[in-house]
């Protein structure tokens, strides 16, 4: 996920995780950062300028797709893939005859 | 459940070494093909 901002001074971006731990995720003069890999839960993002100017914090809710749906799809994929492999390998063994 | 450090170690070093080996293998195969005049 991309987080962007506009500022004419160096900024520090902090992320507060669902347990309330605060950690800095960015420190510098850029105008955006890419965040990924967070676990499920509610986060808060805070942006502070070098001069102490403070932007309104934004909250961020992370919810990953359902695991059971993902596993069903993976199962279907595995089945299709496996059958494809079987057709090719059986065909290769019985080459020349009807597979 | 997370991927362990050991797994990451094997994965990263394994694939880098694999890349090195395959580069060597390609070069060796070309030399072998060249010696028997079978490059193309």
């Amino acid at each position, binding site marked *: 996920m991309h987080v962007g901002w506009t500022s004419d001074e160096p900024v520090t971006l902090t992320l507060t995780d669902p347990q309330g731990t605060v950690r800095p995720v960015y420190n510098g003069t850029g105008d955006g*950062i890419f965040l990924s890999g967070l676990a499920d839960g509610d986060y808060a993002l805070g942006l502070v300028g070098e001069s102490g100017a403070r932007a309104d914090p934004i909250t961020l809710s992370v919810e990953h*797709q359902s695991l059971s749906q993902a596993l069903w799809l993976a199962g279907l994929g595995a089945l299709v893939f496996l059958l494809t492999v079987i057709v090719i390998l059986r065909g290769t063994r019985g080459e020349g005859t009807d597979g | 459940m997370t991927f362990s450090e050991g797994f990451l170690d094997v994965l990263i070093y394994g694939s880098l070494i694999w*890349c090195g080996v395959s580069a060597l293998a390609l070069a060796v195969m070309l030399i072998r*093909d060249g010696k028997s005049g079978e490059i*193309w």
Partner: protein
Amino acid sequence: MAEDKVFLDPTVGWILLALFSALWIGLGVYWGRRNKSFEDHALAGRNVGLALGTATAAATWITSNTTMLAPQFALQLGIWGMLAYSTAAFGLILFAPMAKRIRHLMPHGYTSGDFFRLRYGRVAWAIFLVFTLFYSLTWLVSMAMAGGILLEALAGIDYVWGMSVILAVCVIYTMRGGLAAVIGTDFIQSLIIIVGICVTGFAVLQNVSVSEIHANLTATKPALLDVLFPAAIMAIFNNLLFGLGEVFHNNVWWSRAFAFRDGVASKAFLMGGLVWLPIPVAAGFIALASGALGVAVPSADMVGPLVIAEVLGGVGAVAIFIVVFCSLASSIDSLLAATSDLITEDIWRRLLHPKTSVEGLKRAAQWVTLALGVLTWLVCLPRIGTLATVLFFAGPLVGSMIWPIVTGLYWRSANTVGAVGAMVLGAGIGLYCYFAIGWYVATLIATAVSMVWTLGACAFAKGRFDWTRLKEAA
């Protein structure tokens, strides 16, 4: 703005570009002198050996996407993202036995279009041509655009100039040298890419250890290490089947099956797949190191160059520039050659001018290559960012062709109703799911639907195909 950050002095970029352009064109012209007929031009005389065969299979499959998108995948989907990307190697590995079968069934074949026409008739052939041309052209456009964008980001070379130079160089040496030039340059390019990735990978590990990377990920990006990361699990088989569909249908791979010497084809594809297998991990893991190295990543698609430039400075920037240029060229040239051969053989010769001489066909193929290059250039010129994403529509199209091709090669009972229905239904339902559910199911559902239809049609089939009908004389 960090996104405009240039890693390399433009002068150095231009010098590198000029050197490699001259090298590829020189080699293309040199190797092209051997080609007399269309068969020499399109299939390198059907006599390519094991070393070149293996290298060309691997190099063509290493696109700019492999070197640039693999880090992005790692950053978004974690360990599973890299592993899911690696599964694309199965496309090549499974094509190995098929390549042997193809050579055996069609000793005089030229293109995958020949197979569809002779095996399933004109309707299936027409659908195949629409699907494959859509896929090939969007792939070509997306790579030429990626070339322009990357050269601009890496060395500050203007988008239009970078894109034009890459495309022009590939068109010139493919036109002059045909498949021989493509395969010859692929060998050099594959070595440069693999060595480049290997060296930069070890260099990154000099600066940060795997345990530091792991500790940093555990603390800040735990989902990337999660064995049960839903988005990544869904991506695995969708990606795998996309790769299978791409390889099985496209003339890029069929023309190589025809071009490799007897007994070489299946070994070369198998080893090409094995050479390719570790590359997404080797190129992708550096993205996972970004946190531990303290590299801020403004946008996911530039994470690879950002980390390498941070760690290795100017040398790293040169290395990445060369690796990216090689991976672009090795795929653009193959796609240009294979698509122009497909158009020459399937449309020009089989539909329009059946009596063209072998020299005439070679000339036609050269002009088609040029025309394809110009068309691609015109489409890329306005730099419409959304165009590259069109490539993802191709997933359902190529997925729906997997079963008609596999059963058509091995089962006598595979038939036209099965093939046409599988392609139309599979692609239709797959595309619907793309918009209704998401990209991560489209290829999977398209393949599943076409599989069910094909199996049904084969079960009810009365006729049995006569394999000798595929041995059409040239």
